[in-house]
């Protein structure tokens, strides 16, 4: 439990190894409801691995994940979305041959009307019937967002939402993420490298480095933390 008096997601002592390398070693953190939490760290720190453990794509060797008071460590991966966890992917994982609408409808709680509403929300109603692969990169990222929102998530996991975006697009993205938190009263956990975005919108930041948790705190304290600065400047962890 963290200082804010509650957590919607709690990872306890997560450890997972890939061929002898500990991708996560005894990582413990909490995510407070209603907050935007940033998960940062150098390449290979274990951020996406962490997401994959939460969404049950990976089975941690040890440790537990509690969501909304329920231990989800044994929940089958395709049942995670029912619990209220939805995600986007670092490298887009859309259903390429399907229409934009069909993409969003997979997993949509309220079927086609709900899917249309979400497309409207991200501004893609006009292209609802186009094949998703015919869309430009930025629009496809928004399809992923709409698809996740259509599941009515209580926790939204964003894996590098700013990847491939320019300065101005990142400004807009930051506004969008804050708007999503407000409009859907959802909690957001976000993996991101783009410090402008992370420092701008996160309430709390968790820093991973080489599979271990390095630091955990508000943006100002993280920015001042000498260990974090060292890790980012190549000093190792």
């Amino acid at each position, binding site marked *: 439990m963290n200082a804010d008096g509650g957590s919607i997601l709690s990872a306890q002592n997560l450890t997972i190894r890939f061929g002898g390398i500990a991708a996560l070693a005894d990582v413990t953190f909490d995510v407070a409801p209603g907050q935007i939490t940033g998960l940062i760290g150098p390449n290979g720190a274990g951020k996406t691995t962490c997401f994959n453990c939460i969404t049950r794509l990976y089975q941690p060797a040890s440790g537990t994940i509690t969501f909304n008071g329920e231990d989800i460590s044994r929940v089958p991966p*395709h049942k995670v*979305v*029912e619990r209220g966890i*939805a995600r986007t992917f670092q490298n887009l994982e*859309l259903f390429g*041959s399907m229409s934009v609408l069909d993409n969003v409808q*997979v997993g949509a709680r309220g079927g086609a009307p709900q899917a249309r509403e979400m497309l409207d929300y991200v501004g893609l109603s006009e292209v609802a019937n186009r094949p998703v692969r015919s869309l430009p990169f930025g629009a496809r990222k928004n399809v992923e967002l709409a698809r996740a929102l259509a599941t009515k998530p209580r926790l939204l996991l964003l894996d590098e939402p700013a990847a491939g975006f320019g300065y101005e697009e990142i400004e807009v993205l930051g506004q969008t993420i804050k708007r999503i938190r407000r409009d859907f009263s959802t909690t957001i956990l976000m993996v991101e490298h783009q410090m402008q975005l992370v420092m701008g919108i996160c309430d709390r930041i968790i820093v991973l480095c080489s599979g271990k948790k390095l630091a955990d705190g508000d943006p100002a304290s993280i920015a001042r933390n000498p260990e974090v600065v060292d890790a980012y400047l190549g000093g190792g962890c």
Partner: protein
Amino acid sequence: MSLRILTTAAFAVVVIVLPWLIPGFFTFQLTYVGAYAIAILGLVILIGNSGQISLGHGAFVGVGGYTVAVLLQSLGLSYAFSIPIAAIVCGVLGIALGAVALRLERVYLALATFALAASVSPLLKRFKHLTGGVQGISMPSPRAPQTLQHVMSNETWFYYLTWGIAALLFAIAFKGLHGHVGRSLRAIRDSEIAAVAFGVNPVFYKTLAFGWSAAYAGVAGALLAIVTAYVSPDVYGIALSLTLLAGAVMGGLDLMWGAVIGGLVIEFLPLWAQGINPALSSVVYGIAEVAIMMFMPVGIAGALTRFKALRS
């Protein structure tokens, strides 16, 4: 949407009227086309939508054929019972194969299903007491019910039965593939990890696709056996599996009505090739197949759709 209804209705009219305009033997051939179309539709579901390959669907056609032959001949059951039973038997076997297929991908799955196709005809020869061994099982030709005897020929009656069943199975496939099930199958095909993250159970849907398509192959096999009035092991070799696959690919794996085109192609293309040069018929057939795939890589149905899209 209304265009789709219009073309479907026009096609239905053609199917209904045709037997009254053409010679009896042609009706007989078109009955084969209907049965092939059902089997190929199964492949459209499996390969086109769920993205799993099968080089072994001829095996299910064989099991369907033998099931119906045994039920009709040894147990004296009617078509109304034996055809659905053939579908169920093949559906269950398909689910079993689907469960194995979960552990295999692409070329390995192709090889495993190929082995299945190769094993059917030796197995049929081995269990003589049930299958009649190399001699197979003969059945009486289909006969129209008493009340229809003076209205239509036996060929025409069975033609209608076959195309009626095909219409039903196409309608089921249309409903399934255009709804939640089809979307889930295609989602798994396009990105399994995203499908899982959005609530699709890949084990369930992949196995379902195998069972569903095998059941269709079983019905096709039952109809082919009845219209031929004979089953024998060598009909159900690897060649049949490959012919069905070729029909599915040439017709167009993405579109349901590609299955009808595929049925027409595998029934009539070899005959056409025979007419061109009886000595080199398989060479002509092969060249024609290569030509279709070169000029219409998405199949004939896909090419027609693209042509229509280009014009509008």
